[in-house]
């Protein structure tokens, strides 16, 4: 039982990390950023390339080195996200909001098959692997590396939450989400705030990519697709645009998958997960922590 919970939480924290960027971007410009999962993929490959360039690493140095790579990768994917917004999304800000969906899918294809052209279709395997001995905690088997990863994820998420709820930057983000024109009248540099939002969201995706690469080992050019889908699900479940909600959404999805597998078997897992989510949404139509929006008439 504790094993199931731990499995769910561990996977869920990856979902949450990717979902956060999704949620932020969705929250601010209502864009279903299909390319978000591909930034995760880009992160994984960037980390791979940096590690490759660094050359052989002694296992003792693995963790600090990985942290350095993590930061470098976050910078790279963050900038990639900013560029993406600049090129493919900003010019369409006044177009119908679903128009962005097209460029987002286009960007997703371009990133995936661009990476394929660069790195090939074969999966790659990280030179540094976090794995090793596991320990028993409360009947669940886990590894110190898993704990470190979850710790890093939680730290990143907590920092982000503070940013969005406590700072003027966060307030500006929420204001832009509601009404960009009026936000500009408040003196908010809408373009800059959106760029920064993309930077943070994409950097988080990149971080998750490196962590996944280092932990699971295998990376490939389509690895972002499925997790992008799950991140979107998690983000919505949590209450779109709501940071703690998104975290909970990611964890919940992880847990649902874990327990769904246990109760119904792997083949019905997603039916279970989605079924529960749908039922949940019909009773609570604004997600876990989504704001109750009372539209006035």
């Amino acid at each position, binding site marked *: 039982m504790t094993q199931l919970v731990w499995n769910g939480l561990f996977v869920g924290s990856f979902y949450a990390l990717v979902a956060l960027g999704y949620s932020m971007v969705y929250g601010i410009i209502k864009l279903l950023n299909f390319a978000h999962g591909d930034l995760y993929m880009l992160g994984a490959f960037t980390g791979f390339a940096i590690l490759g360039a660094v050359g052989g690493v002694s296992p003792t140095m693995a963790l600090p080195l990985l942290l350095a790579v993590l930061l470098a990768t976050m910078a790279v994917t963050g900038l990639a996200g900013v560029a993406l917004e600049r090129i493919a999304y900003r010019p369409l800000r006044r177009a119908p909001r679903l128009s962005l969906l097209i460029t987002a899918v286009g960007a997703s294809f371009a990133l995936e098959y661009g990476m394929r052209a660069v790195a090939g279709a074969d999966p790659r395997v990280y030179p540094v692997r976090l794995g090793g001995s596991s320990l028993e905690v409360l009947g669940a088997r886990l590894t110190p590396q898993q704990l470190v990863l979850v710790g890093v994820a939680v730290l990143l998420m907590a920092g982000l939450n503070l940013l969005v709820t406590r700072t003027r930057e966060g307030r500006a983000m929420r204001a832009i989400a509601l009404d960009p024109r009026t936000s500009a009248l408040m003196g908010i540099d809408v373009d800059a705030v959106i760029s920064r939002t993309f930077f943070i969201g994409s950097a988080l995706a990149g971080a998750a990519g490196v962590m996944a690469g280092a932990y699971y080992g295998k990376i490939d050019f389509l690895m972002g697709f*499925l997790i992008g889908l799950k991140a979107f699900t998690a983000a919505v479940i949590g209450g779109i645009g709501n940071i703690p909600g998104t975290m909970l959404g990611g964890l919940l999805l992880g847990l649902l998958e874990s327990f769904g597998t246990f109760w119904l078997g792997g083949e019905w897992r997603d039916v279970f997960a989605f079924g529960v989510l749908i039922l949940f949404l019909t009773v609570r139509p604004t997600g876990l922590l989504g704001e109750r929006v009372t539209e006035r008439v």
Partner: protein
Amino acid sequence: GQGLLGGGGESGREAGENEPIVLGMLIPQSGSEAAIGPYMSNAAQLAIDEINAKGGVLGRKLELKTADDACDAQAAAAAANKLVTEGVDISVGGYCSGATLPTLPIFGKADIPMIIPAANSQELVDQKLKHVFLINGTGSQQAAAAEKWIVKQAAKSVALMHDNTSYSKDIALRTRELLDAPGGAEAVITEAVTPKESDYSPNITNVLAKKPDFVYWTGYFQEGGLIARQLRQAGYKGAIMVGDGSVSPKLIEIAGAEAAEGVYATMTQTPETLEGAAGWIDAYRKKFGAEPGPYSNQAYDAVRLAAEAITKAGGTDGAKVIAALEAIDGFAMFSGPLKFTPEHTLANGGFQILVVKGDTFALQDSLR
């Protein structure tokens, strides 16, 4: 253009004497299975170059046309039609059963024989189509081999894991059926995983809860590598075996040498397990600067077999080629001497057991 008013649907296949013979190959070049495409097309090209270097077939050169089926039914149908339109004489492709199924009537209608190198769902031959030949062992043959080895290993409780695709599920279910017969090992769980994920710990938790001493994974190497690794990480000490979709050096890389060591595989013969194949591997390496991957040897053999059949048939006429294929007996392939059963599958399934030793799959037991 070939409009309705023009030449009609029949393409210009009335090949002249010196026209090349065109072999068509549907392979996944995009989508989830994109990694496989190049292995197969490279090996096919290698075979063609070798044959052409010796003067071709019936004095005509061979030519390869590949098309991307993306492992998707609709894309495959369009791609198959494209090959038909381009005047392909024989089809030597087909990796994903799901994508290959809808192409059967398309090639059939155009009177094009199909030698399917990799896709091996039983359903491909269930319709008893005259023009369809499988040169990969079928699911039932593989399952039989697996069961044989499991029994030989004196395993007691077996966990079957598949990825819920037709190929993989088929092998798992057939193996379970064989194990369900009284006596010997017992199948304690059949677990389906979702392909393309990274974390299979929930599935593994399920599997290990049943305390198996033998795990058989019937899907592909990408997940296979992760599953082997995660099984070991979770403390599983028993035997692991994988199906032919997982036989690739990549599996060892993904699992990591430690976790992969000693993993068994059910597989038709591969270059690595054949005495005489070292030269072939070298040739492949030299030409493409890469290791031959899964199903490269089957693709290579499909081309050679097509050439052989055309030679025997004295031309590319569909019916004659089919007759020639049915008549073949003892043609040497990686998987052993070839003969087709009445339902156009390998008479000799030729599955053997490999084992991971260091960074390759080595022959463990030929099950003869």
